[in-house]
């Protein structure tokens, strides 16, 4: 990310990192998590679960910031995120190479 000046707490802010976990066979393919993930981590998969629904899958590995929005909005208790310990300092999520808006998620539409 380009800063016009370096924030004073540049070295201290840690962007959280998370890992999405999906309970595949509980999903009913509603699509809420895919639509409202602020980091576009998920997409509907082409495969089916046991009930015939398309569950989501992680398509942007490493982008999850553990905001837990998917966990809150899923009506089927089929997805949640867990915090990963290595949130990195310097306003950059570790592993984000494409310079996307890594520091702080954009205003979440569903706040």
């Amino acid at each position, binding site marked *: 990310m380009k800063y016009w000046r370096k924030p004073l707490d540049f070295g201290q802010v840690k962007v959280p990192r998370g890992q*999405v*976990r*999906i*309970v*595949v*066979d*509980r999903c*009913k*393919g*509603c*699509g*809420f998590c895919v*639509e*409202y993930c602020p980091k576009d981590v998920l997409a509907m*998969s*082409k*495969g*089916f*679960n*046991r009930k015939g*629904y398309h*569950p989501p*899958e*992680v398509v942007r*590995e490493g982008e999850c910031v553990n905001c837990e*929005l998917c*966990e*809150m*909005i*899923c*009506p*089927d*208790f089929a997805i*949640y995120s867990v915090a990963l310990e290595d949130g990195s300092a310097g306003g950059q999520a570790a592993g984000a190479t494409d310079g996307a808006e890594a520091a702080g998620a954009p205003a979440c*539409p*569903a*706040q």
Partner: protein
Amino acid sequence: MSTVTDARVEDTIPEDEHPIAPFLRMDRIPHIWCPTCGIGTVVKCFASALQESGVDVNKVSIVSGIGCTGRVAGYMKLDAFHSTHGRAIPFATGLKLGRPELLVTVFSGDGDLAGIGGNHFIHAARRRMDLLVVLVNNFIYGMTGGQNAPTTPLTARSSTMPYGNFEPPFNLPHLAASSGATYVARWTCLHIRRLTRSFKEAIGRRGFRFIEVIAPCSTLYARLNKLGTGFDLMRFYHDNSEIRHGAPTSEVDIDFQGRIICGKFVDQQKPTFLDLMHDHYGKMLGDKYVPMPPEGGWIHE
């Protein structure tokens, strides 16, 4: 176990690892609600609120009526009562008065609480009975196949109003506030964080607390009105809900596909039914007044 072919998911998640699994009857999950139904989201927010509020979960009771939202009691791992249609509120009143230390929640739908249960709703609000009432409003009678509800907006179609509804609907926050509710809020299923915060706030309050949650009903309301699925309704809430805390409740009616005013409309502290009862009997009877203890009226050896 997973049959998703090109997914990068963990295949063997133990089901009880979900953060709110302790609040759910995991032996009954997956639940019966339709894909894109919003009720599950409300349950998740409520369970999170309970978790974060730190209340003694053993003292929380939940009472549901009949209908889709009425099934909530069956999925939550609390002392849960699935009572008769419309009678969740008086049933909950009995629970609260029989054992005053309980935290009693009523979780039911618009048809159950505002239709057949309308009378009980306004009287419990009037009395300021110490209940947290969560009304999930999907504008229709879902479980029975999509009939007109007291909240169905004008011109909306339903299975008993096939040419469109011509009956004016209730404005529920206004009804609750005018009847005497001391905490009145409305959110949609999309406002997950604000809804959770509202639940937490209401859990910490006393008296008749009323939270209306607008929820998408894909199979009936959306389909009969050609609005797509619940997913499309969520997008609609995104574009058409407006947060106005403290708005006068007379102004928060919902027209068909119109603006949905959300927010916390009423937040007052007033003596509850039990406060009033204790104060009054204390004054009138002095030390002859013997109140029922908080542990309730169970007589045992």
